[in-house]
């Protein structure tokens, strides 16, 4: 493993920000840590970089314990959330900074700066002042600066956080393509699930300083580990249920579940696509509380006569209006039985 954390723990005062985290990143792997703000994901990066000392546990790079190795000797790169470009240097001066620190010759520096600025799509920008750059351009310069010394591990803190949506969506594709070509090992953190799923080979979801789930984007999306992960991913139809043979008893009545579902008192996730609208006299009777336009579909919020609210995904034309009476039927294929305790 290129990077491994073993029981990494950091406390700020009485608060445990990283709680015995174990994490391994293989060479050429792109791992994205996903979590709400305050879940400890930035602290994780700082601990690996050597900017935040651990209270216990260890960080290994290439198998070597990094205790006592200061940040500037770890050979990892970190792209800061708000870039932290050096204001008194121009673009070239920023990109070549790490090369100078590693004693590269002037010639090597200028060649590498040109190469990297081409790579991030800012050819010929070396002489520009960083204050004159747009947000997206600063982002690219920060990336070039972090890549320049060829770090064995590149870490990105909310890499696309401050950019507008269309730019973000374009850049995330470019980044994945770039890292693939360069074979860079990447550990990124973000609170944006879209970004994480688009960028990562593997997604790690964090909650309160612990790892809640780790897996491929598809695995995490299809089978959230517990109610917290499901709700963090934006699913609202999460309830406690008693799972029996092919059917579960829920506040919404009996709901079909996949045959291989584990039995007992469980947490049940009903994806919006699994909530099918039927005429009012069939299925679970509900009133349409609200509808939200989502571009490709309409999210319909339903208030059953009995039980918690439900969200359904509807085709644009088929969506009912607020106040309409409808019935609901459930599709077993879009229902998952989750592990872990029930979310509040």
């Amino acid at each position, binding site marked *: 493993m290129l990077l491994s954390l073993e029981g990494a723990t950091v406390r700020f005062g009485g608060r445990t920000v990283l709680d015995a985290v174990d994490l391994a990143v293989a060479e050429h792997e792109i791992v994205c840590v996903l979590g709400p703000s305050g879940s400890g994901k930035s602290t994780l990066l700082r601990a690996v970089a*050597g*900017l935040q*000392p*651990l209270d216990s546990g260890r960080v290994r790079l290439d198998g070597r314990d990094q*205790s006592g190795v200061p940040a*500037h000797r770890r050979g990892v790169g970190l792209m*800061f959330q708000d870039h*932290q470009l050096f204001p008194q240097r121009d673009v070239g001066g920023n990109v070549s900074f790490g090369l100078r*620190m590693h004693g590269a010759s002037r010639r090597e520096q200028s060649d590498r700066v040109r190469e990297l600025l081409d790579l991030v799509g800012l050819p010929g920008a070396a002489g520009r002042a960083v204050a004159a750059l747009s947000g997206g351009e600063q982002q690219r310069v920060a990336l070039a600066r972090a890549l320049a*010394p060829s770090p064995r591990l590149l870490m990105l803190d909310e890499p696309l956080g401050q950019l507008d949506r269309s730019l973000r969506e374009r850049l995330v594709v470019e980044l994945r393509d770039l890292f693939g070509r360069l074979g860079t090992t990447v550990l990124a953190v973000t609170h944006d699930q879209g970004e994480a799923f688009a960028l990562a080979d593997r997604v790690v979801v964090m909650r309160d300083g612990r790892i809640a789930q780790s897996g491929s984007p598809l695995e995490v999306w299809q089978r959230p580990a517990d109610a917290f992960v499901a709700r963090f991913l934006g699913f609202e139809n999460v309830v406690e249920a008693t799972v029996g043979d092919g059917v579960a008893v829920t506040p919404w009545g009996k709901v079909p579940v996949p045959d291989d579902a584990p039995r007992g008192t469980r947490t049940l996730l009903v994806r919006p696509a699994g909530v099918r609208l039927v005429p009012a006299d069939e299925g679970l009777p509900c009133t349409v509380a609200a509808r939200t336009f989502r571009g490709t579909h309409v999210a319909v919020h339903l208030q059953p006569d009995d039980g918690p609210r439900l969200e359904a995904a509807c085709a644009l034309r088929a969506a009912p209006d607020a106040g309409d009476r409808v019935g609901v039927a459930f599709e077993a294929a879009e229902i998952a039985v989750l592990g872990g305790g029930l979310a509040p």
Partner: protein
Amino acid sequence: MTRAATARRGSAARLGLMALPVAFFAVFFAYPVTAIVARGLKTDGTWQLGRFADVLAQPDVRQVLWFTTWQALVSTALTLLVALPGAYVLARFDFPGKQVLRAVVTVPFVLPTVVVGTAFMALVGRGGLLDELWGVRLDTTVWAILLAHVFFNYAVVVRTVGGLWSQLDPRQEEAARMLGASRFTAWRTVTLPALAPAVAAAALMVFLFTFTSFGVVQILGGPTFSTLEVEIYRQTSEIFDLSTAAVLTMIQFVAVGAILALHAWTVRRRETALRLVDAAVTARRPRGAGQWALLAGVVATVAGLLLLPLAVLVQRSFAGAGLGHYRALTQEDGGVFLVPPIEAVGNSLRYALAATAIAVLIGGLASVALTRRDAGRLVRGFDALLMLPLGVSAVTVGFGFLIALDEPPLDLRASWILVPLAQALVGVPFVVRTMLPVLRAVDVRLREAAAVLGASPWRAWREVDLPLVRRALLIAAGFAFAVSLGEFGATVFIARPDNPTLPVAVARLLGRPGDLNYGQAMALSTILMIVCAVALLVLERLRTDRTGEF
């Protein structure tokens, strides 16, 4: 690396940085001051603390204490009254010549007290401009001292309050207006509370400077008016009553300590919890007759109060003799000096340069140590301690140098370095006050960014901090230079008769009768003023609004 090891390494680094400043202050400040206080209050190895009661019982000492306090209070109130409109105008208005006005109001602050005293003599003294025009003389009244104090400290208020005012977000007031507050109510409930700590800090600084005023009162006070500092000088060098001087020194020390503690507290409050914006976006053109009248009033005040005394000084240096007074400066007259007075220029520059180098080194190291994020209470205490030389009797320090630094291994009496060392003591607080806010404003994550790119802590400091604080460093050096150049209280004791500095030469010339001596004093003061003003105008080109507290 575990946290404990990191903390140990951090405090080791801090101790290393602090070692030199601490040693400097111990040897060249604490030791001489203690030595002279001990000389005055210790007989046969026991402290004569009863002297406090004896001295305080003397009516003329009480008179001095009373005068020192009330003139400082009145000077502070007057300065605030006159300078706050100036602070507002320079903070919120945008008008042609603003930069020049800003530079002009700062010139008096770096002028040597001796020059200020001389300039006011030329304006309101016997045979002064007002005397010639209307027969008005103020040099026998307290007004001359008060006006000179306002002149001297105008910049302190404009810099401290105006600097913050220009960065207060005007949208805060707008938000209050939108919630139904009138223009005045919005100002009173939003802006005024935000400004209050800065006003308090400025007022305390002015109070400190006027409470310990020496050169101005020495020249303008005549025999009637005497501050503590002047009285300490008189007791030490004229009456040779060291025990009274020691008691007065201790009283001043306690008072200054209290003022500085209050000041540190208000400054800390000022540093917290305010939303600041770039000063460039808050200023706009004056609108309406009222605002233009305010601007005109401020310009008139600056012209009358700050420029006129200096102009009169220059005029007097030429009066009746053309360049004669200047020419006379190059000749030995045998009486006042052993050398031609003009040599004082070279002496002053040499001393001031050496003092600047020392002050920047000591103050710079102390600032870097104080910036470290893990700085604790001990360090904050050191922060306040660094300000002490501003207020502790310079006369005491100077005389302390003479009696304390006269034995091996520290026999410096015959050494030229004695003068720069004393001057550097006064320069260090300015260096620290200028550097500290800038160093603290450097985002710690820039340093971290440099570290993950492979820069060692020292390299990161050199590559990231230094370029960002280079201007502040130059400004600090300039202030230290100007202050050293004008230092009078300590230098008057330790400058050797054959190597006088400019302020010492001016004071000696003023102390002798005759038009030629008076004219020469004016000429020499003009030279000193020009050197200081040039140093300051160079600085003003470097300065931004965010730099420093002075």
